[in-house]
């Protein structure tokens, strides 16, 4: 009897909560290569590319949501969750959106704590979250991902692309990327795995960084940290000129020569050598963080 009462109470509570939610299911025509701008505060944003020239939005809006603006004019579709003024952070302003867009759309997604998931979109992507997590299949030629503390997971398709990745304290993992990458973090950890690398500009303040991949032709890698550890695994055969230097950190190298002290009295290490034809250029600097190089 007691159990049944609790069950009924739970169902009533659940019904009360869901009574304030608003279900949405809307569709608009859209340009096959148009811009789709999406903004949401909390909840989720799931974007999937498809082969129709229309954008559909389904999902639910929490009680703190005033309305969903959904417009499509010329080549621009806007999907925007607008909260009531009285809604505070984490207070009923959730909106869970499942959005289908033409596969070649250019995406601009902007959230606060809402997680962003993108699948099957080949147009340029600009994904930004404050604390939400970002996960995307990078079929795009160009992608820019930015978070404050949200973690980032990116999966490329081994096609050359331009990726710009910025976090303040979020961790980021990118796999099967190729081409140019610029990645910056203060305290987050960056874990990057590329099939081929043509340009990489990587910087952390205290976060750790790992880059794996094959240097292609005259590839350039510039990497720097203050106190984080930097780990590089360049796929053999390695052809490049290496300039590696630390003020007080260690340098380890599993191929080529070993590092040497910068001076008789200081703790610094340096390592300068050419491997193979030396076409690529790899430059790595650190204040106190350790640097590790290997050809596997």
């Amino acid at each position, binding site marked *: 009897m007691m159990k049944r009462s609790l069950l009924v109470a739970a169902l009533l509570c659940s019904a009360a909560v869901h009574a304030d939610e608003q279900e949405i299911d809307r569709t608009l025509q859209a340009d096959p290569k148009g811009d789709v701008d999406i*903004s*949401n*505060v909390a909840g989720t944003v799931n974007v999937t590319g498809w082969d129709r020239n229309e954008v559909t939005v389904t999902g639910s809006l929490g009680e703190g949501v*005033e*309305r969903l603006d959904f417009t499509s004019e010329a080549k621009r579709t806007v999907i*925007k*969750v*607008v*909260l*009531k*003024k009285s*809604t*505070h*952070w*984490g207070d009923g302003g959730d909106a869970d959106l499942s959005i289908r867009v033409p596969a070649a759309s250019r995406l601009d997604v*902007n*959230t*606060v*704590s809402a997680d962003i998931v993108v699948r099957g979109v080949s147009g340029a992507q600009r994904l*930004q979250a*404050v*604390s939400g997590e970002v996960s995307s299949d990078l079929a795009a030629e160009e992608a820019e991902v*930015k978070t*404050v*503390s949200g973690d980032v997971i990116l999966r490329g398709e081994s096609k050359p692309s331009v990726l710009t990745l*910025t976090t*303040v*304290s979020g961790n980021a993992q990118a796999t099967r990327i190729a081409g140019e990458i610029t990645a*910056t973090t*203060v*305290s987050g950890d960056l874990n990057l795995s590329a099939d081929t690398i043509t340009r990489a500009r990587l*910087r952390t*303040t*205290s976060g750790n960084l790992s880059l794996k991949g094959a240097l292609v032709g005259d590839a350039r890698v510039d990497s*720097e940290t*203050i*106190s984080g550890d930097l780990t590089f695994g360049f796929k053999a055969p390695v052809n490049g000129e290496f*300039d590696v*230097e*630390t*003020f*007080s950190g260690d340098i380890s190298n599993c191929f080529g020569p070993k590092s040497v002290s910068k001076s008789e009295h*200081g703790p*610094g290490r340096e390592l*300068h050598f050419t491997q193979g034809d030396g076409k690529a250029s790899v430059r790595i*600097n650190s*204040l*106190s963080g350790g640097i590790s190089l290997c050809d596997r």
Partner: protein
Amino acid sequence: MHMKDELHNGGEHDEVMTMVGKLPRSIEPQRDLWPDIASRLDAPQIARRRAGLQIGWTFALAAGLGCMALGALLTVGLMKRVGTSTAPGTLTAQTTTPAAVPVVGAPQVRQASLGGYAMLGPEYEQARATLMIGLAERLDRLPPLERQKVERNLNEVRRALGEINAALQLAPNDTLLRELLLNTYHSELTLLANVSQIADSIPSRTQS
């Protein structure tokens, strides 16, 4: 955004642009660098691996940082203009916890230096101070937890600057340290610009 805020930001934008106009096109080093340059020109080749950085490095660093400050100010100024021109009739700023949440290491304006070797010009300091003032407004728009994370990370960058400066006291001619210092100042400005941009683009609330 309230009309008052828009007017305020517009005025601040003008102020920022005025300050940008006052930034020097060149910054004179504070001591005669030629004797040091001449001695380095005679150094062995291995020591000149980074001759481009060593020759006139103070000038290069100061000019570089001036450019960074200019770029950051222009970015913030542009973002402000964009921010005030979009979404009319909606609130883009929502101050949630300006006083209720304890601030871990509130933004402070510190004098920027190149390892005690040379001080950056007053124009750069002023430009940076303006960015920091703008930052405080923008941090108010972030959720409290995220605001604290940003502040912790700004402190992390400042700690890094402190470490480099301390190292430069031991090795004032170390080119690696100078480069790290320059890039860390750059990182600080980039972080400020990124946080400003993210805060400016936080989705809006209605006025009702």
